[in-house]
């Protein structure tokens, strides 16, 4: 099935799923309440947004310089930096390191870039054991499905479903307590940590000035991933760079505030290399893999370049009326919601993914919530325009030609109005059925009646 058809079919099913809607609504109402409280504590949230946007603008618009600085600083302290143009290359680099170390088991903390390149599948195919350690990711991995949301991967599941899953996959006793469920996962994963040969992470920021990656989390799983295994690999998109360490004094609390609603998430950690002389622990080897994967194509589009400012907080998903109704899996993309609809056409092809830019009410809630001021809803319009420019729709072309033909001939226009009014009397006979010429519209909506009188007729009568 083509992506557009798949999206439409699944969206139709999901919008009628009241259980799903209720679940997402409950989860997001809690999020909204704490987010608003955290935002209100700022002395000037709008000025903070502007500064955050400018810090990311500076980084993205001098990306070559900052990437070189970042990589040089890391290498100076013993980190191996790898560059990958494509997802395939990134996978080969990572597999190469794992093979060379003769590693068997890999423990992973949450990384959307690894979803983007389908790393887990590649590792499993080669016979390596990969365990997701973030609780939400662990749950969706056991269910063999992709994350539902970039920040809340298991948001679409109830505790009952998770309890059943754990009972089936881990042999644990059923329970309705989120706390007990969390402890089951903690026990299972602790053992994996102690045995793991390789720790794999993503990154939220890459600090050019000091050569560090920054990882934001709540659970402590990324910290264990970076502390216990002897080899650490981090995969990050080239757009993660920020110029200075101090930029994080602003970006970290803003990411938390919009990401989860917390003023600051539990652990915000910076890693600047493997274990240094005099340090008691940490990996002997630290590999950083920088991934392009068509980000440079998005970079070349000046108009939409700010989409690379994205810090993946997921805020735009949470406020999006489309996301909240169709759900995260309907998109069939790594990044869903408004930001996904904007960038996926650049990363995977405009014509095949342009339908996402039409799945929007253009309400602008995404643009308003974005902590780094990405002009999201305008970019949806830009995508629509670019798609039409690149490959005009035959139907629309013919329709507009016909319209122009009629509107240019006053007598023809007048008679078509009269005909419309006459034919409309018979419309209820076919309304909403396949025989309806306006079926695409009328299957879910009403067609407003044509006025009894045109404005021109009214004006003439009046005088």
């Amino acid at each position, binding site marked *: 099935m083509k992506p557009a058809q798949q999206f439409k079919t699944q969206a139709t099913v999901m919008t009628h799923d009241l259980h799903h809607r209720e*679940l997402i609504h*409950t989860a997001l109402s*809690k999020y909204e309440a704490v987010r608003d409280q955290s935002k209100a504590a700022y*002395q000037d949230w709008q*000025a*903070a947004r*502007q*500064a*955050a946007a*400018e810090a*990311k*603008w*500076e980084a993205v*618009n*001098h990306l070559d310089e900052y990437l070189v600085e970042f990589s040089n600083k890391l290498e100076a302290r013993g980190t191996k930096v790898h*560059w990958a143009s494509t997802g395939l290359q990134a996978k080969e680099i990572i597999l190469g390191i794992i093979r060379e170390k003769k590693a068997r088991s890999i423990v992973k903390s949450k990384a959307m870039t690894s979803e983007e390149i389908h790393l887990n599948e590649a590792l499993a195919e080669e016979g390596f054991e990969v365990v997701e350690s973030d*609780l*939400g990711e662990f749950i969706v991995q056991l269910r063999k499905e992709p994350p539902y949301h970039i920040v809340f*991967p*298991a*948001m679409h*599941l109830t*505790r009952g479903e998770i309890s059943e899953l754990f009972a089936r996959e881990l042999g644990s006793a059923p329970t309705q307590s989120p706390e007990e469920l*969390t402890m089951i996962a903690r026990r299972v994963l602790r053992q994996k940590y102690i045995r793991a040969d390789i720790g794999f992470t993503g990154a939220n920021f890459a600090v050019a000035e*000091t050569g560090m990656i920054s990882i934001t989390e*709540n*659970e*402590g*799983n990324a*910290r*264990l991933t*970076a*502390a*216990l295994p002897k080899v650490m690999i981090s995969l990050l998109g*080239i757009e993660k760079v920020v110029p200075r360490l*101090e*930029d994080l*004094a*602003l970006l*970290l*609390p803003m990411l938390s505030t919009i990401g989860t609603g917390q003023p*600051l998430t*539990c*652990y*915000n950690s*910076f890693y*600047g*290399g493997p274990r240094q002389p*005099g*340090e*008691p*622990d*940490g990996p002997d080897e*630290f590999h950083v893999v920088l991934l*392009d994967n068509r980000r*440079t194509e998005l*970079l070349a589009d*000046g108009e939409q370049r*700010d989409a690379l*400012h994205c810090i993946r907080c997921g805020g735009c998903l949470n406020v999006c009326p489309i996301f909240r109704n169709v759900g995260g899996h309907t998109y069939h993309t790594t990044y869903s919601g408004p930001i996904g609809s904007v960038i996926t056409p650049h990363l995977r092809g405009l014509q095949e993914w342009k339908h996402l830019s039409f799945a929007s009410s253009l309400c602008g809630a995404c643009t308003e919530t974005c902590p780094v001021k990405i002009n999201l809803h305008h970019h949806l319009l830009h995508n629509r325009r670019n798609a039409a420019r690149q490959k005009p729709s035959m139907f629309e072309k013919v329709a507009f030609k016909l319209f122009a033909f009629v509107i240019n001939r006053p007598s023809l226009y007048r008679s078509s109005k009269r005909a419309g009014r006459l034919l409309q009397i018979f419309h209820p006979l076919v309304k909403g059925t396949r025989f309806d010429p306006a079926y695409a519209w009328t299957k879910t909506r009403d067609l407003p009646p044509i006025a009894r009188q045109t404005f021109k007729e009214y004006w003439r009568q009046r005088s």
Partner: protein
Amino acid sequence: MNERELILGRIREALKVPAPLPGHHGDERSSLTSATVPTQVRQWLPAIGESFADRVKAFRRKCSELKADFHALDSEGDCVKLLTDVRDREQWKRLGAHRGDLTDFVCSRLGLPICNTDKGYDVAGLESCDAGLTECDALVAQTGSVLLTSRSAGGRALSVLPPHHVVLARREQLVRDLPEAFAVLKKKYGSNYPSFISFITGPSRTGDIERILVLGAHGPKKLTICCF
């Protein structure tokens, strides 16, 4: 040409087209003028008073929101007394710690076997400790955070592996806000940063099941901060 040069080449080519500045749609300048460096971050983040009493008050409020235990104490002696009570209540058998003025003093008086991380350690041994005792670089009043590094707090694992993390701090380490904490980092470590730096804000937590808060996801279930 290698991938590094190919990627950098594509970036340079792409950047020949200018991009509009944020918040100035259509205005296509190629570099920022005034506000490039966010020097005024303090003015925008949540406000915190300057006096020591203000900082303690803010830190205490944050800790209670975060479900962390905070104790502002008068002396090392009070700290030992407090931790002796916790030791008995939680029936500590073994303690993880690192060498330092504050940790050495407290460890010597708690009278428990110590797993010292400074010279390397056995992971299973550290995992079986009832608590991890560390010093830190700063406490941040604005967020209720503990700032520590692999150099100041005995490595990467000591503060995350045992189920209870106990932090010992000096009063003067309690700073106002995040910008000040970053300034402390820069001043203390300059060009030779430790390989691990972390802002720890409350005990480990998750909300991945129905967005319901559970403490102790992978890291410590309890965080106790003693400031004297």
